[in-house]
């Protein structure tokens, strides 16, 4: 009996899986989204990606839908979990195209998963405006996959942004010349550190301590003790979400007194402020936004209202902006993918992060590189050409 029950459940699962999605009314567009809901990157996607999908669809539907060739179409989302597995991302995109016949397919989440699915998007000719992929190879990628757009920048400008900000603080006389650099021994951390170290040396800084620690290190107190004993004027960590939190906590425990404290990924997350409260005043990190801009403020308020969570101050607004680019392009030229891609290449778009204008390599040349917590908001202090940067301030003692 039990075996039969199991067989029935399995059959049911299969049947429901393969039954076509209920035939929808003609004035509905299916929007497909594939990103991690489980696996190592699920946490990041839950902050920066999924809430924006929800917000975008609700916003478009609230204003009466998308205007496609003169007809108002409501949006309906189909969400798939790729389990942070590129094979699953590829399969889910194909499923969206062929089984679900989705009209719009959003790009996936993270550098690895975006690049893994680029050939599939390319084969179907789908415009892929990535918002969570960082690469310094935008030119090569756009040569191979002309449908792919890069908006979040690359490691090189991000690392150089950190050097630039610290140089400014030093030249103003706010900090001294000694800098300690640590990095997580994983892809993005390594790349950033390798750009930053020679750049700091060239800028005349003295590297009094440098070290890396393995991904997933639980105890970073030895690292912070060593940093403290090197007595630096500035601390730079090219870190990932768990270690960004751990290093900040250890720095407070060890009472590391530096005029510039930089941690990388996740410094811009609202949960970072939630965890450390006012003590992070003056902390630097990757990202930033034009916090005084009205478009961003409206977006942040809507984000909190619709999804119940604050956006982060790096990728969130960028993710939403790329959805807006797609939205505006569809309203301009309809659902013809080739025409949409041409439209994106040829035009500049007004979005929540300001103007988004892709260059001849399908790359967005102007993005935020460094932000700083000032009065509870993570404000952009350095960028590659965005407006609204505020002056960087020297960090006081931990509160």
């Amino acid at each position, binding site marked *: 009996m*039990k*075996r039969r029950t*199991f067989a029935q459940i*399995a059959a049911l*699962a*299969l049947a*429901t*899986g*393969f039954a076509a999605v209920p035939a929808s009314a003609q004035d509905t567009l299916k929007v497909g989204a594939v990103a991690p*809901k*489980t*696996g*190592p990157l699920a946490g990041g996607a839950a902050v920066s990606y999924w809430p924006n999908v929800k917000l975008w669809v609700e916003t478009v539907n609230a204003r009466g839908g998308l205007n496609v060739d003169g007809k108002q179409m409501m949006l309906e989302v189909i*969400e*798939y*979990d790729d*389990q*942070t*597995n*590129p*094979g*699953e991302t*590829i*399969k*889910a995109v*194909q*499923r969206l*195209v*062929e*089984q679900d016949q989705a009209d719009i397919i959003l790009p996936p989440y993270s*550098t*690895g998963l975006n*690049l*893994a699915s*680029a*050939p599939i998007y390319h*084969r179907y000719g789908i415009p892929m405006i990535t918002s969570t992929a960082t690469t310094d*190879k935008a030119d*090569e990628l756009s040569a*191979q996959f002309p449908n792919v757009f890069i908006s979040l920048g690359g*490691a090189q400008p991000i690392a150089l942004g950190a050097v630039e900000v610290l140089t400014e603080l030093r030249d103003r006389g706010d900090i001294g010349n000694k800098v300690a650099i640590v990095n997580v*021994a*994983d*892809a*993005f951390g*390594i*790349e950033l550190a*390798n750009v930053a170290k020679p750049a700091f040396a060239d800028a005349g800084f003295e590297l009094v301590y440098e070290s*890396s620690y*393995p*991904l997933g290190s639980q105890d970073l107190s030895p690292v912070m003790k060593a940093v403290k004993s090197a007595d630096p004027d500035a601390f730079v960590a090219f870190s990932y979400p768990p270690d960004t939190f751990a290093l900040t906590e250890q720095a407070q425990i060890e009472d590391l007194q530096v005029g510039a404290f930089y941690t990388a990924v996740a410094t811009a997350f609202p949960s970072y402020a939630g965890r450390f409260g006012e003590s992070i005043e003056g902390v630097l990190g990757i990202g930033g936004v034009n916090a005084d801009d009205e478009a961003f403020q409206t977006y942040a308020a809507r984000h909190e209202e619709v999804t119940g969570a604050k956006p982060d101050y790096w990728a969130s607004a960028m993710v939403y902006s790329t959805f807006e680019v797609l939205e505006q392009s569809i309203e301009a030229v309809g659902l013809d993918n080739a025409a949409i891609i041409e439209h994106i290449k040829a035009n500049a778009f007004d979005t929540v992060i300001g103007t988004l204008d892709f260059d001849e390599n399908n790359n967005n040349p102007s993005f935020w590189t460094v932000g700083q917590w000032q009065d509870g908001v993570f404000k952009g202090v350095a960028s590659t050409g965005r407006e609204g940067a505020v002056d960087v301030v020297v960090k006081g003692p931990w509160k």
Partner: protein
Amino acid sequence: MRLSPTDWRNLTLSALALAFVACLPWLVGNYGLSIGVTIVMYTVLATSWALFSGPTHYISLATAAFFGVGTYVTGIGIEYLPYWTLLPLAGVIGAVLAALVGLATLRLSGVYFVIFTLGLAEFIRQVITWGQNVSGAKGIYVLTSITEAHIYWQLLGLAALVYLLGWAIGRSRLGFALRIIGDDEQVARHSGIHTARAKILLFLVPGSVAAITGAILAPRYVYIEPSLAFTPMLSFQVVIMALLGGTGRLWGPLVGVIPFTFLWEGISITVPNQTTLLLGVSFLVIVYLLPKGFVGLFGAIRRRMGSEGLV
């Protein structure tokens, strides 16, 4: 080796079946093909896994390690070598790695082996990460013109090889020796069988095959980084699928892979937010209700029908 008429019949039928599934790219769309790639990939991995783990009862969780090494062979090698040399190269590197692991662990038995193989994938991943840290290179881009259909056909060819190899091993002295080791290692040793050597020789098969599979699939991923290439999920899924099918017969893993792929697909489509939970539940169901897999189930049905005089 002399083949009986039954062998010839089975070989012919297998060849016909292979020819039929090779036509898949023309029969179904891209989505169907991507399911086909998944099925053949797991068939290759689970069957080669069962070739070793079936008779010896050693549960190996090293699939991800060999698979990841294979993807890196293609990822790094494609810049310097012609593509066709990479697959044999991955096979050789996988076999050498398997031999080293085998020499180190197969003299031990039971849980030591399981733990070591689980740690192996993590170990190699850390070595590659360290290499990246030293060299400063991040992920590797594999930009080729290899299509999904090419990958599918390569995997099918590999599957045919694995079946032939499994069939040949089953008929050889090595296969016989392994069955005795699986029943009782003491007895095997006292019968004069060099048990360690037999196990190491057989362990080369899943090692080498998983590395080749990784090498074939690398162009599909375009961008390779350690956390994606060495995902431990892969090792567990291969074990689950092989156990679902049953390891007693050569075709056992295949009848596990096919329903599991569709079940997994059904779960991903209908409840995308609870995939991992349901994977765990289905694993429990399989272990409790089908301890010997579908192979055992078919055997039981056949016996029951036989006792009722139906067959």
